[in-house]
């Protein structure tokens, strides 16, 4: 194995394997210095480079060649060199460019968060909250498309799409045979199945999970509830699908499982892909073995209001593991 190389991001150094990208090096450090990524997905080969939110400044190319790179570079695509110095949040130029990218992403976005199922767990929402401007300078009609049902379980809401291509890569790499792709060009580009074919295979539901916005939504969950009113619980089952891990998050309201998703890590990427049977068919508590409450970051709206002793959710009262976890979380909160 080759020697590890040293890279400094926003003043913090880390040693990584050669060939690591700046973004992944930053993720090894963790914290606020990790550039946001809307299109890069570590589990999908070839993804990234498109959304431009992860732009960073390379202040020093490497130990040998200390010249800075002339342009901002996409951190998800640029590999680190030994002695590279990267500026992310410390560079006003980067923050300015990122603000510009967020503005561009939003000018044709409908901003219909109040009626969007993704609200509360939307990457674009988080991104614009953190990096965007509070008002828009765009004064023209937004581009619109009709809603399309692609298959009986998934709805495509193209207006919200930011063309990250993740669902295209997912269909290419996770499922057998891709039937959808990008049609047309420029700001008229759209994700489409061409001649209205349905995305019909037993792994298709994963495109919902990889979608950073509310463009691909679960029809079985559509308008059922806001995500922050539901309680996420880790669970698993023995799935006989060879590629499915069976490890999921159940989203409870009362005693009902409103939806099932794969488990997402702190960067919004799923830990393992799940099959459509687990996602759409198994919506009874009896189908699952409950592991405990899903850890959600404190900053997320989903983590609020779930842990109380007086009126715990019915599902919590019925499960030993959840009762214990609830007590612990409650005591932690009131301290």
């Amino acid at each position, binding site marked *: 194995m080759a020697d590890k190389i040293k890279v400094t991001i926003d003043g913090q150094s880390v040693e990584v394997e050669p060939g690591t990208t700046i973004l992944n090096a930053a993720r090894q450090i963790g914290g606020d210095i990790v550039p946001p990524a809307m299109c890069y997905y570590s589990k999908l080969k070839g993804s990234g480079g498109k959304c*431009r939110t992860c732009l960073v400044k390379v202040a020093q190319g490497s130990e040998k060649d200390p010249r800075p790179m002339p342009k901002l570079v*996409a951190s998800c695509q640029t590999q680190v060199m030994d002695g590279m110095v990267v500026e992310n949040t410390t560079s006003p130029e980067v923050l300015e460019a990122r603000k510009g*990218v967020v503005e*561009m*992403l939003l000018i044709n976005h409908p901003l219909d968060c109040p009626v969007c199922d993704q609200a509360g767990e939307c990457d674009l929402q988080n991104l614009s909250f953190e990096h965007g401007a509070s008002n828009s300078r765009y004064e023209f009609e937004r581009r619109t498309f009709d809603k399309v049902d692609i298959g009986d379980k998934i709805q495509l809401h193209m207006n919200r799409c930011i063309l990250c291509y993740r669902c295209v890569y997912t269909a290419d790499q996770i499922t057998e045979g891709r039937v959808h792709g990008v049609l047309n*060009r*420029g700001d*008229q580009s759209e994700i489409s199945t061409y001649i209205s074919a349905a995305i019909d295979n037993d792994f298709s539901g994963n495109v919902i999970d990889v979608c950073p916005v509310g463009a691909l939504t679960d029809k079985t969950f559509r308008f059922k509830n806001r995500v922050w009113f539901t309680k996420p619980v880790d669970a698993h089952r023995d799935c006989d699908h060879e590629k499915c891990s069976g490890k999921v998050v159940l989203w409870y309201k009362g005693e009902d499982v409103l939806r099932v998703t794969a488990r997402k890590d702190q960067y919004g990427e799923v830990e393992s892909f799940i099959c459509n049977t687990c996602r759409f068919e198994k919506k009874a508590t009896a189908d699952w073995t409950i592991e405990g409450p899903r850890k959600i970051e404190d900053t997320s709206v989903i983590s609020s209001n779930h842990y109380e002793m007086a009126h715990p959710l019915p599902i919590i009262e019925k499960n030993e593991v959840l009762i214990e976890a609830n007590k612990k979380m409650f005591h932690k909160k009131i301290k």
Partner: protein
Amino acid sequence: MSGKILLEHIDVPGINTFDTYRKMGGYRSVEKALKTMSPEDVVEEVKKSGMRGRGGAGFPTGMKWSFLAKPVGVPRYLVCNADESEPGTFKDRYLMEKIPHGLIEGMITSSYALGANTSYIYIRGEYFYILRILEKAIAEAYANGFLGKNILGSGYDLDLYVHPGAGAYICGEETALLESLEGKRGNPRVKPPFPAIAGLYACPTVVNNVETIAAIAPIVNMGGDEYAKIGIGRSTGTKLISASGHINNPGIYEIELGLPVEEFIYSDKYCGGIKNNKKLKAVVAGGSSVPILPANLILKTANNEERLMSYESLSDGGFVSGTMLGSGGFIVYDEDSCIVRNTWNFARFYHHESCGQCSPCREGTGWMEKVLHRIEYGHGKLSDIDLLVEVSKKIEGNTICPLGDAAAWPVASAIRHFREEFEWHIKEATLSQSRNFGLLAAHPALVK
């Protein structure tokens, strides 16, 4: 000398056929290279010639060739970029239509130098009739033993194919071109890796412009040192300029680099002055994506030196007071031209041609177009001007491929040099709508 190298025999009747072309000294470079030179020698000659890529970026060709990776057992490719779509540029069309064998000869010699056994000419879809001309010429070359197996008994094999695009400007970007050639959607690739390492079918590939490849033949014939004597400084050789706009003699001119811009515009040998004896207002010197320059800055640099048709002189002053030679699409505007309308027209083009892959270009080009449309049609606001500048800054340099820059530069430069005209358009919305009767009559102060 006539000063013409590429177009030396353009007027010979029947020059598009193999026999006439051969009679006029064609295919000498293939004989010379294959019989007396090693591939490295050819690359060395091209390096010595100092010729810079004619497609727009102006990167030295010999240098580009020497970057080509040469792993054992992996094929290498030469791809000719004939997807000439830049508004204002039409030189490659002329070259391929009139002297198709000139390009084919260059392709053979260059492929030999690069060690490519399969080469492609990627031609834009709208040039379908030229595709027929090229295919006929290629068939003639095959029949005469200049293509195929064991060319001229040297043991070198080469197959040459022409592949039409489907009418997308973006496929002129080299990695989008390669994607399209592979049969995929023409989206530019994220670089690195550069095509010299992983290009067509993930193999090392060189992509060169038609004019660049056509110039390889004369370079090999006369020798790199001799070629380097033509031109000025680091701008060696001759360049085809597509002159269009309000001039008396629009057309293709082969000029020796270093010709004064003033002479090019006003000499009867070239553009022949501005039409109807009007005054020069502005020039786009290298195709629609380079910054537009007003008359005073195109004829003289900011330091009051004479502006020359060369890579260095045109870019003198950076983007503040300079421009680029680009692909040589020389568009001339007379005093009555409306810069706002022209800028809107360019913005509309880039909006239409953005591939839609990366966000700043996909959304920003449309935004700029809409704002410019609003100004042009009399609904603009004064704040729109600064908005345009800001949007163009947000696009420039933040995209995967140079289309973002190409869309941002014309807008930014037009505002930089003609801000008063934009302001006048907004303030005097009704009057500006009547500019068809002549901008000069409507507002004489705007004409510099």
